[in-house]
């Protein structure tokens, strides 16, 4: 899928700052995330992780900073694009900290909606679809096949026709990841995917993320509090505290960084 060398940064964040009135939620953060790697972003509550994601995916316009995505021989300046363009053109997909599914629609429909732009073009902006032309029917069948593929990956084939809102919590989290993957992203941003999962589900999730990285050759940006997941699967870790980047590096190195230990265990520990 991806040409170019695997070490080229897929995403570059430079001097990102996001202010809310007097509050600086993200302050001068720079880092890069490479293709085919899992980059974890960790930090205590309120460190600015979700805000960083919101800037990346166009939900906030950063106060200062440059966000560049580059793949397939092209470069996108994310801070200048609208949220839906970022998802569609720069191929950045995301999940949300508090799951955002289309609860009243079925599991399968959630995954079909994720392929909206492709299907919309195939239906000639609904004209071909309205008259049921075969070209559209073929596109829809392909969309269902892609959905089935991801349902198999996340173990939800049996419940494909259920209302998404009726699924247990863990299944909803997995469905949200499957839905993001159905948009065929090059960068997948996951906001605390293991929150509220039991240890077995967390282990399955780790496996899924490794599968996505290795078999779909995309970059993954992972916000996570569950250190067992982070340490096990991340190739690179960025640590935020009070909006600033306090450490960065391979997981083994970050784990032993005194600044990180101080941030997590509190000031007294470091003093």
């Amino acid at each position, binding site marked *: 899928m991806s040409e170019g060398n695997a070490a080229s940064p897929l995403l570059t964040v430079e001097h990102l700052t996001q202010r809310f009135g007097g509050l600086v939620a993200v302050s001068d953060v720079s880092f890069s995330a490479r293709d085919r790697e899992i980059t974890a972003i960790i930090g205590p509550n309120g460190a600015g992780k979700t805000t960083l994601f919101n800037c990346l*995916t*166009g*939900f906030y316009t950063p106060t200062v900073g440059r966000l560049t995505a580059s793949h397939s021989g092209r470069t996108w300046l994310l801070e200048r694009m609208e*949220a*839906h*363009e970022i*998802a*569609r053109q720069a191929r950045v*997909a*995301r999940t*949300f900290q508090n799951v*955002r*599914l*289309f*609860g*009243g*629609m*079925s599991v*399968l*429909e*959630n995954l*079909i*909606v*994720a392929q*909206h*732009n492709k*299907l*919309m073009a195939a*239906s000639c*902006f*609904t004209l071909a*679809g*309205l008259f049921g032309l075969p070209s559209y029917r073929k596109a*829809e069948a392909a969309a*269902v096949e892609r*959905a*089935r593929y991801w*349902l198999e990956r996340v173990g939800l*084939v*049996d*419940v*494909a*026709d*259920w*209302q998404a809102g*009726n699924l247990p919590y863990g299944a909803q989290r997995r469905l949200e990841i499957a*839905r*993001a993957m159905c*948009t065929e992203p090059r960068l997948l941003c996951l906001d605390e995917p293991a929150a509220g999962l039991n240890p077995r589900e967390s282990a399955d999730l780790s496996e899924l993320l490794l599968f996505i990285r290795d078999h779909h050759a995309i970059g993954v940006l992972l916000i996570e509090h569950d250190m067992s997941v982070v340490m096990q699967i991340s190739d690179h870790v960025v640590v935020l505290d009070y909006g600033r980047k306090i450490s960065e590096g391979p997981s083994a190195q970050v784990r032993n960084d005194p600044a990180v230990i101080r941030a997590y265990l509190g000031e007294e520990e470091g003093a």
Partner: protein
Amino acid sequence: MAGAGTPPSDFKAALGEAAAAGGIALLLTLPLVGMRTLETSGGLVIHPHFADVALTVLLVFLGRLGLVLIEAGRGGAVLAAAAAMVAAGWLLPFPTEALRGIALAGGLVVALRAGLALRSRHSTLTQAERDRRMDRVGARLQDASRLIGPVAVLFALVLPFMPFANRGVIDLGCLLLTYIMLGWGLNIVVGLAGLLDLGYVAFYAVGAYAYALMATTFGLGFWVCLPLAGIFASLYGLMLGFPVLRLRGDYFAIVTLAFAEIVRIVLLNWTAVTNGPVGIAAIPRPSFFGIADFTNSPAEGHLAFHQLFGLTFAPVHRIIFLYYVILALALVVNFFTLRIRRLPLGRAWEALREDDIACTALGINRTNIKLAAFAIAGMFGGFAGAFFATRQGFISPESFTFIESAIILAVVVLGGMGSQVGVVIAALLVVGLPEAFRDLAQYRMLAFGVGMVLIMLWRPRGLLAHRDPTILLHLRKSARQQQAESEARG
């Protein structure tokens, strides 16, 4: 009365609460109801209406007392008392009709609440379980509607030739179908896309005026103007969409309402074009697809419908024709909606209703999707408006007030947002019943209100709020069964 057997302390507390509610009612009604300004030769004077205030306060007091006692487990006694009040309202002479109405309505609502409370106490089901059971009924109805639908369409097709179908029945049919069509049109915006549009009547007005003006000034025929009216209404939707679609929720609803009022006020005041409050009269009737006219004495070079088919002239021919026109238009909207729900655009609308932020994150351009909903629903509203103009032969801004929007919205919401069959049933209830009971004069709006309260108590999400998936991975049977099993478990 109702308190017999209740521990005195309980009853006292209930009395106290009812008195408090009465006190608040007194504070509110004294300035609002109790004092009315009256214009006399000597200027404005304040005219007191203390009797009305006393009545209102008494009603609030009794109502609150009833509700508190229901909660305290005295449902049976309250039910009896409230039923007695309704009976009294029905049979006994009252000083004013308003008083009788209040006694009837108040008694009914309290009796209803008592009845509901009694039923829920007798059944061991929780509210959630009852909702789910109703949902299953809705699902079964939905299944049945696969059959009911064609049967209903067949019935609608043969209705004009039924023995009981006199002119009045067909006229009522036209009116009902107009509201069904409007309901289905608004359903696209409210039910599917989840945009609460309080100004749908504006599309209807634009369509009606577009046809009336084009027909009276340029002499264009109905069949040429019908698509044009749709296009004009659709353009109005796009124009409205650009400023309005940035807003969300309540703000959106209020601005659509405001725009509809603006349209009405423009129609009212732009006398040079719209003829202002006088309206436009002598709007041409539709021809038989431009081939023949519905008249006894056709103009030179024109055919008459009865000549074309070798019938004897009857004025009812035109009405039957109009009936079929609106039936066809309504069915077009219905088939369009059924079809679009299975297409990317329709699915995106529903996704937008469920979670618009998630939509954006999936690369869906919200603005375009919403504009499409507005333009398409607006077009259908415009068609209905053109039909209304040609059926009435006369339109004025009076026909496009907020109450029209409210009725169309009530049809959609009561029917169960997004449900096509629900819209039909709700239109029958909301438009058909008051129309059928015109003899009851002022009571019909009261009955309308009571009906709304009833449905909202019984099915807060609408009559048929069940939604079937638009695409299945597995067979339908197994999907239903699995879902039901999981619900039984969880």
